[in-house]
């Protein structure tokens, strides 16, 4: 039987306990799979592949030969989490985003947190993502980061830790939804046998959140999704979300800002005023009048319109300041400072290289730590100590000494694993993480679960799709409610 030789050794496994039995949330799933033979499993694997092709689920990889559309790599064995555990986790995520938004709003206004000595001023001053252009702006509900993708990992003890907060233009939510759609076709029986909480209300929730940002109180505010275009790696997702919400997918050249400082969309019926822009392009490309002058992706005058309060931008420009990995180290204090609450979700222990003592520790232990640049995303520019060569360590030592503010280090976590179908008769543990999406406008919302990303290579800890990662459906299983 497929489970007979399954073992995850020293890591926490999401489905199977160290003694080899199924965890509560996975009992029925493990049983169900145990009943399948090799042929059945293979048939379902192929069904997933065909479904992915039919649905045209793809992502773009940049290579030297040009951009390639690749089919989404997907493992048919879901990852399960029990409903009560998820409830607490979701509360922790909401708490975190609320505090982060208060923090961002404070930074662009009075900067009380700096005056009170909680965060050193120079960290903000030197942050690449602090935008002086945003000082004094008042976005609706005091919220700057409306859509947040927070990466969670589980260590050997099974505890969820926050690895990072993505507050700029987090992506992946469409894959979360598509993973569920695929799984419904591949393992349809399980949705009768088990109480799997639904997650497909995300587009609805996103739409409602965006609606709550509209500067005009009118019946049908105009909401658009702004994409950099077809050559962006997440274009599929941009088109998907626009379609699901029933709003226009626009490019920068479809919009203009008129003398009245309002944003208009160019339609066949003439200009139509736009109220809310869910922008999927980075701050620096948003407005050539203010930021990158050569940007053709953005819209000249967009910042003027936003500052005048005539259009809402989600996420707001400047929200990325809290996305900085040095700020990350301060999030527990930020939560306590603004909310007067203890953080529900712990951070991963983080060493700041700008602190001489911590830096010395990092430099001495490069072979054990994970070193990350403060402002990169997508898993680029990282050093994974235990998997690195002496030469790579030396390169990072030099980089850190050159620009200590730009680096942080964390202990190499023993990331949790889940059973992954390697071939039709081999199930092996693979490392994974979880990216839930949190929305905040007038109200807050957390996705039921999130996007589970898997490192498909044996032993690998890198889950990014741009670097050979795959994904799984994530089930929040209610075992209480029979």
């Amino acid at each position, binding site marked *: 039987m497929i489970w007979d030789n399954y073992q995850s050794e020293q890591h926490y496994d999401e489905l199977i306990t160290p003694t080899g039995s199924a965890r509560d949330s996975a009992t029925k799933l493990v049983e169900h799979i145990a009943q399948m033979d090799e042929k059945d499993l293979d048939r379902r694997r192929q069904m997933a592949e065909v479904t992915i092709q039919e649905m045209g689920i793809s992502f773009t990889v940049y290579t030297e030969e040009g951009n390639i559309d690749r089919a989404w790599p997907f493992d048919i064995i879901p990852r399960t989490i029990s409903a009560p555990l998820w409830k607490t986790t979701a509360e922790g995520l909401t708490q975190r985003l609320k505090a982060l938004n208060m923090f961002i709003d404070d930074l662009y206004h009075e900067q009380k947190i700096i005056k009170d000595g909680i965060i050193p001023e120079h960290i903000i001053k030197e942050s690449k993502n602090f935008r002086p252009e945003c000082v004094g702006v008042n976005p609706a509900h005091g919220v700057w980061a409306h859509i947040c993708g927070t990466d969670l990992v589980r260590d050997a003890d099974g505890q969820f830790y926050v690895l990072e907060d993505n507050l700029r233009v987090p992506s992946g939510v469409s894959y979360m939804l598509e993973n569920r759609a695929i799984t419904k076709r591949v393992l349809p029986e399980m949705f009768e046998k088990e109480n799997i909480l639904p997650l497909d209300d995300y587009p609805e929730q996103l739409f409602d959140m965006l609606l709550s940002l509209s500067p005009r109180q009118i019946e049908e505010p105009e909401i658009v999704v702004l994409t950099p275009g077809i050559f962006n790696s997440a274009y599929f997702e941009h088109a998907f979300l626009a*379609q699901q919400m029933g709003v226009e997918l626009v490019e920068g050249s*479809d919009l203009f800002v008129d*003398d009245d400082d309002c944003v*208009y969309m160019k339609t*066949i019926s003439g*200009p139509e005023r736009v109220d809310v822009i869910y922008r999927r392009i980075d701050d620096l490309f948003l407005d050539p009048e203010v930021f990158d002058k050569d940007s053709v992706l953005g819209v000249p005058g967009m910042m003027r319109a936003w500052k005048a309060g005539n259009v809402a931008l989600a996420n707001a420009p400047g929200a990325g300041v809290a996305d900085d990995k040095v700020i990350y180290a301060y999030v527990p204090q930020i939560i306590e400072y603004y909310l007067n609450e203890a953080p529900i979700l712990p951070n991963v222990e983080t060493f700041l290289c700008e602190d001489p003592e911590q830096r010395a520790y990092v430099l001495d232990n490069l072979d054990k730590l994970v070193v990350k640049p403060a402002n990169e995303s997508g898993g680029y520019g990282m050093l994974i100590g235990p998997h690195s060569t002496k030469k790579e360590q030396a390169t990072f030592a030099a980089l850190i000494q050159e620009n200590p503010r730009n680096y942080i280090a964390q202990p190499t976590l023993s990331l949790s694993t889940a059973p992954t179908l390697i071939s039709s008769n081999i199930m092996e543990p693979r490392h994974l993480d979880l990216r839930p999406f949190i929305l905040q406008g007038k109200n807050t919302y957390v996705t039921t679960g999130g996007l589970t990303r898997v490192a498909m290579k044996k032993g690998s800890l890198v889950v990014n799709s741009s670097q050979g990662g795959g994904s799984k459906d994530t089930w929040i299983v209610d075992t209480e409610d029979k």
Partner: protein
Amino acid sequence: MLSRVAERIYWSARYLERVENTARLVGVYDNLLFDLPRDTNISWFNLIKINSCIDTFSDRYKVQTEHNVVKFLLADDTNPSSMLSSLKQAKENIRTTRDVLPQDTWELINELDLYARNHIRQGINRTDRHKFLNSIIQRCQEINGLFEGAMSRDASWQFMTLGRNLERADMTTRILDAGVSIMLQPNQGTRINLSQVVWGNVLRSLSGYMNYRRSVRTAIVSKKVARFLLEDEYFPRTIHFCINELESATKKLPRSKRVLKEIKALKKLHYSLANGNPLDEQFRDYLNQLQINISDLHSALMTNWFAFNMGDHQEETPSLKKVEQKEYPFACQA
């Protein structure tokens, strides 16, 4: 509907139609040459003339041979209107409007593109040309059939109709012109009824042979063929039919006054073939005028629905909000 999306759909339809029509046009000549005796003075270079691309052709080729002309029309990437260039444009426009077009469109256009590129030699050499061209035409019709059966008749459909019929009307004038220009060439000593062969092929190239037979009910006579292709109400490739299609699509779109004006002007153009007027140079001038008016109509709809030019429209419309509901003048992108 976004102007950009509307424009891309319009161009998808135009380029797709151009791919099909270029195949048809080369097909007319190919067939003609089967039927005509060797001493007939018919030059392939006529095809370059009627497509108004003498300059582009001469930049590229010194000799006006069949091989060069066919290569230029089908395969040449320095010719922006060649079949392969048009196909590439059609594909790019469809690629970026995938979410408003039927799901299988992208797959079908990819298959067509692959087929055309892999078999282009067959089009250039005479042996398999007929088979190749037929296959291209069939695949284009397959895509149009998909649109017909799977698209909502909303604004995107109207823009597709505009693109298809504008391109079609233009090509019908050019194919007619091809016929007239052959007949005007000196061909003393020809032993066969050249007129019947030429006009028969003109009709076949537009899939209109049987329709002509049913509708006109006389022999293939040049002037009657011309009149059929210009004025028949029911056959979908005649000028009359295309203009009607353009008109009804335009009427279903917002702010259409300016475009309707151009359509009216196009409708007014008439050439009397009833009396003794022969199909001469004067008739060719008329065809040329039709092409100019079609091109004006194209500019009008570009300006009206697709082009936005910030700098200019502000001068014309000092208060944006007041005019938002009414006709909104746009300036053309330079």
